[in-house]
Each structure stands twice: as structure tokens, then as C-alpha cells.
């Protein structure tokens, strides 16, 4: 996560729970002509409060006159104007990648959070992080486009529960066996319930195994004494 552009710095700060207000952009005294953000440490992983940038990397036309070396009046004013303008440009930058799909996923997340699937789902949707919500929203859109409910259920569970394995019962029963490779917590259970509600086709039901996998003959990993769940 090397910060290369001004908008990246702001998005990173927001993801770390900060506010764009706390970042202050200044013109670097010494900078590389090939980079916009001029970190003191080239590979730093933290977003500094004061970020030195090269304003001429992308915005030469805008800033070419602001910091004329022959003019040293009103330095404080010019510095603050610069900071505000960079924030404004970063805001414009952030709209660059917006397209229909991005808006759709934003709308879907909003729908979920305002109770499209009822009050209990609204409560449960608060448990997910922004990134997880985006995974759900993307698959939800795909669900209505393709109707592949079972596939998308598996896909979402796999993405949100890292060590999970899904089995389908082949005996003609509409049953799914889910092995979620983590300990059972009420938050995790609620999350899973929400996914089942949204994606699982009506006749299906699930058997969930949390910490321990059920034993499968001939698969050595699942046959450890004291850690076998029964099916």
C-alpha cells in the first residue's frame, strides 16, 4: 500500500478511521519529477499528517504561478490555499472511477442498511466491514442478473469466511454442509444467517460446523481424535 496519488492518501486515511481534514498537503522543497506524493520514506505504510507533494506532476497548469520563487509575500495564505485546492482536486479525483456498477453497489449497500430485507437483516448488516459489504453487494447484483443463487451463496461464504469449505449433499436432499474454519461467535453466526437469508434458495437448508470438521474416512486431516464433529 504505497501511496502514489493524493486521492490515495485521503482514501487510506479514511479507511484507517481518520478524516480528510487531518491531512495537510504541502509543496515539497525537494521532490522527484516522476512522483506526485513525495514521502520521506519511500515505502512507508502509514499515512502522515503532513504530506509533501509535487504539484507539477499532474497539475502543472493549475499551480505553475502559485509558488513563483521570486514571490515571497503571503506565504501562509498561499500555503493554505494550496492545501485546500489539493483537497478539492482529490475530491474530483475520487469521482474518476465511478461507473454504473460502482453506483449500483453503493445503492445496494444503502438498501441493505435501510431495511430492504427487514429489520433483523438491517441489524445484521452492521456487522460487516465496508469491504465485506461490497462483496455482498456485488454478488447480490449478480444474483439478480444471473439467478445462480447456490453458486453465489458459496462464493460469498468463501470470500467472507476464509477457511470455510462447502459440501452439497448428493443424496437428493436439499442440504448444504458448511464447515466454517473458525470458532463460533454470535457475530459470525449472525453474519452467516444474513448470507443464508439473502442467497440460499428456498428449499435448501444448511448444517453448519464451526471449529471442528466432520470426519471423512480416508481424509486424514479430518480424522484427528478429539476434533471430529459428527454428521
Amino acid at each position, binding site marked *: 500500500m504505497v501511496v502514489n496519488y493524493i486521492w490515495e492518501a485521503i482514501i487510506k486515511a479514511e479507511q484507517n478511521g481518520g478524516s*480528510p*481534514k487531518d491531512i495537510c498537503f504541502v509543496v515539497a522543497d525537494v521532490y522527484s519529477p516522476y512522483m506526485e506524493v513525495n514521502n520521506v520514506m519511500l515505502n512507508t505504510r502509514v499515512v502522515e499528517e503532513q504530506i509533501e507533494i509535487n504539484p507539477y506532476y499532474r497539475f502543472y497548469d493549475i499551480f505553475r504561478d502559485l509558488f513563483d520563487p521570486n514571490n515571497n509575500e*503571503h506565504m*501562509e*495564505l498561499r500555503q*493554505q*490555499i494550496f*492545501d*485546500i485546492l489539493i*483537497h*478539492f482536486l482529490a*475530491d*474530483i479525483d475520487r*469521482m474518476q472511477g*465511478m461507473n*454504473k456498477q460502482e*453506483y*449500483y453497489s*453503493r*445503492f*445496494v449497500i*444503502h*438498501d441493505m442498511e*435501510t*431495511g*430492504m*430485507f*427487514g*429489520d*433483523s*437483516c438491517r441489524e445484521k448488516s452492521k456487522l460487516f466491514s465496508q469491504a465485506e459489504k461490497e462483496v455482498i453487494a456485488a454478488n*447480490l*447484483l449478480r*444474483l*439478480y*442478473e*444471473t*439467478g445462480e*443463487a447456490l453458486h453465489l451463496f458459496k462464493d460469498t461464504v468463501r470470500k467472507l469466511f476464509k477457511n470455510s469449505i462447502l459440501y452439497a449433499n448428493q443424496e437428493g436432499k436439499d442440504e448444504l454442509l458448511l464447515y466454517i474454519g473458525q470458532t463460533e461467535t454470535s457475530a459470525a453466526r449472525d453474519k452467516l444467517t444474513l448470507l*443464508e*437469508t*439473502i*442467497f*440460499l*434458495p*428456498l*428449499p435448501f437448508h444448511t448444517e453448519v460446523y464451526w471449529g471442528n470438521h466432520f470426519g471423512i474416512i480416508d481424509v486424514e486431516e479430518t480424522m484427528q481424535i478429539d476434533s471430529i464433529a459428527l454428521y
Partner: protein
Amino acid sequence: MKEIVLDRLQKIEDLEQRKLLKNIMTGVFLPLVEYQEEMNRKLEERVFQQVAETEERYDIYTTVCPRDELDPLHEFLYPMLQQDLERTLPDLASIRAGLGKKKEVKLLTVFLACEFLKVRELIERPRVFGGKLVTTQGTRNIQVRLRQNRAYIQEIEALHTIFQQNGVMWKTINHPYAYKFFDMLLISCEGEIAEEEEIIEISVHLEEYEPYKKIDMIPLWNIECLTLKNLGFPVPADDRVNFEHVLSVRKTGTEHGYLVDGDETSIRYSKRTPEEITIVSPCEKSGTWDVRKITQPTQGGISSRQAYALLSNKKRKDRFLDGFASKQAAVVRARGEIMRIIHSFEAADCFELTHIEVGTMSDRVAETYNMNPFLLDAIRLESEKKTIRLHFTAHTENHFILHDMMSFLVSEVQMYFPDYKCEGVLS
């Protein structure tokens, strides 16, 4: 952005420079920022509008009101049946003729403001009630039977046919009141009725139903029958010649829904543009057409107070996925889909869907009824269907139309899941 500007202004220590910055900011920069934010918001709105549902022109609003309180100039509510406007007492001649032939004669129509479960008892087990017939010659004891009045239900079914003819997607009509009307049928009357008598009063005591009895009630909805005149020009369609009859809706309002009512021999199809309805018909002569206008309420009008709640089958407008789902061909059959369908209606506000049972399960006394009995599933056998049982809790208590509102929501789910038998349970 504003916050950043305020913050940075604070940071400048030189007051002269701070003033300069403040001037620049308030003069040019902040309006620029606001403009940019406004534009972004508008863009988002445009993207949203592309998928938002547009069929709100056909939302049906319903209620019921006493005949004396009927507002003939109401902006959007009209009686379901025109003949309700006149108060009619049965004439004695027909009563005499009916009694003579041992036929039941309809005396009155009553509205029972009680919940569905009580109404159903009355439909399933017909009861006989006693009453009094007061005429100019004296008072007589009479006996009457109650039978559900199906005139309004038939009117809803007729509307469904018109929706079909016009190619507009059907949404269940949320009209709980229409199912609570009963006809009083005269079974017997004490003594002979002379020819010159006139009815002064009819009174019937409905025993435990007495508190719910309301006479002279009229069900209303926002559908007005219009006749519009037109001009028609013939247009060839390959080897056929049809006539395009154009009706202008500029005068009657372009924001409303219009449905052309007529039989299929005279109407091939109709098209709607914002300002016109074009009826394509083999009829050469221009003339008048029967049109149902579905008036949508406008904001800010003065409406008279209503004793009974105004209901509708309106959908929420702020949901993205509802519009998106309706534009996709794929059918989604998850529990969440049922929840989405239910919560897409404003009528679902007083309910919470707690859980959904699916499978073959033991029968229980139904608490809901199908509001679209005319939508038949011609493929599957009713008896082989699995059941979807929807468990609701209600936020409001003791509302006499609660079970009917639930029936409305369940009937909508039923349309999406024809291979299941849907029912609702209130817990």
C-alpha cells in the same frame, strides 16, 4: 470541504492573510465546491433514476367512508360503484313478490368493521338474525341472512382484466374494506304485506356482530371512469389496416395512469406517450372511448378528514434493488427475496416478518386469504404444492384490517412463487 476550509482559516496566524483567504473562500471557492457537490449528487440521482421503477402511475389507493361524508369533489377518491351514490331502500313490491315465491330479497348492504377471522366465520357458517320492518301500517318481525357482497370483489377482478388488456403489470389491490361488505337477505316476514304500505325503517340486530355494523358505507378508490373523444387516422400494418385513435390526456393530467376499457374486437392494443393514448383499432369511425383514469394524489391538496385509513399498493421509491430486480429476467428464490418483496411495499410498515417456514406442513386455520383468486396457476396441482408460511408480528394492535393487510402482502408473494402455497400467520 467546508470543514477543511474552516480548519485552515484557523491555522493562519497573520490576520491580514486570514482575511484575504476568507474573502477568496467565501467569494469563489465555497460556491464552486457546492456546485461540484451538487453535480455529483445529480449524477448519482440520474444513475438511480435509470433503474427506478416507473410504473407508479398505476398505484391504487383505497378507503371506505360513510355516504354522508362522501366528498363529491375529492381530488382522487371516487366510489367503486356509481350506484352506491344513491340511497336505495328495496321497494315493497319486490319484497312481496320475493316472499311469495320463497325467494330471498336483498334488503340492505352492511359493512362489518371487524377483523378477517370474524368475517370468515360469518361466510363459512351462515347465520340467521332477527329484525324489524317498520312500514306505514305497523311494525313486523323479520328474519334475515347475511351473505358476503361480492360486487366490489368482482369490480377488482374486472379491473384486472382491464390491466391485462392494456398490458400493464398487475399489482394486488390493497383493499381490505371491499371484503367486509355483507348483503342482508330477507328470509321471512311476519304477516302479509299490503300493497299500499311503504317502508319507513328496516332494523336488524346482528347479535355479537352488532358493534361492528355500519350502514351506508361506500368503498372508494382512485379510479374514475371517463369517456374521451378522439380523432382517428388509418395506418396500414403490412396487409392489415388499423385506425389510430388518439386521445389527448393533456386536459385530464399527464401524471396519471390511464387504461382503455373495451372488448378485444374493437381494440387491438393501446400505446401511451406522456401526453396521448393511442388506441389501435379496426374501428373506422371516431367516437368516444371508455377510459379508466387512475388518479395519483398530488402533494399539497386539501383532503377531507377520513375516518378509515387510506391504503395503497404503492411501492417505496427510495429502493434501488426493487427496480433493478424487476428489470432482470432471472428469478431469485431465496428467503431474502420474499423479504424484499414484502418490504418493498409501504403497506409493510406496520409489520415485521419474523421468520419463514417452507415445506409440507400440517394444515392450520388460514389467517390470510388470496386477494387475487382470479390468477389461476394452470400448471400445478394445488394439493401437491409445498407451503410457504410467513410469520409476522404487527407493530400496531387491534386494528381490524391487520389480517387483510397481511393477506395483501402474502398475495403479492404468491404471485412470485406460484409453485408454493403462501400463507401468513400473525403472532
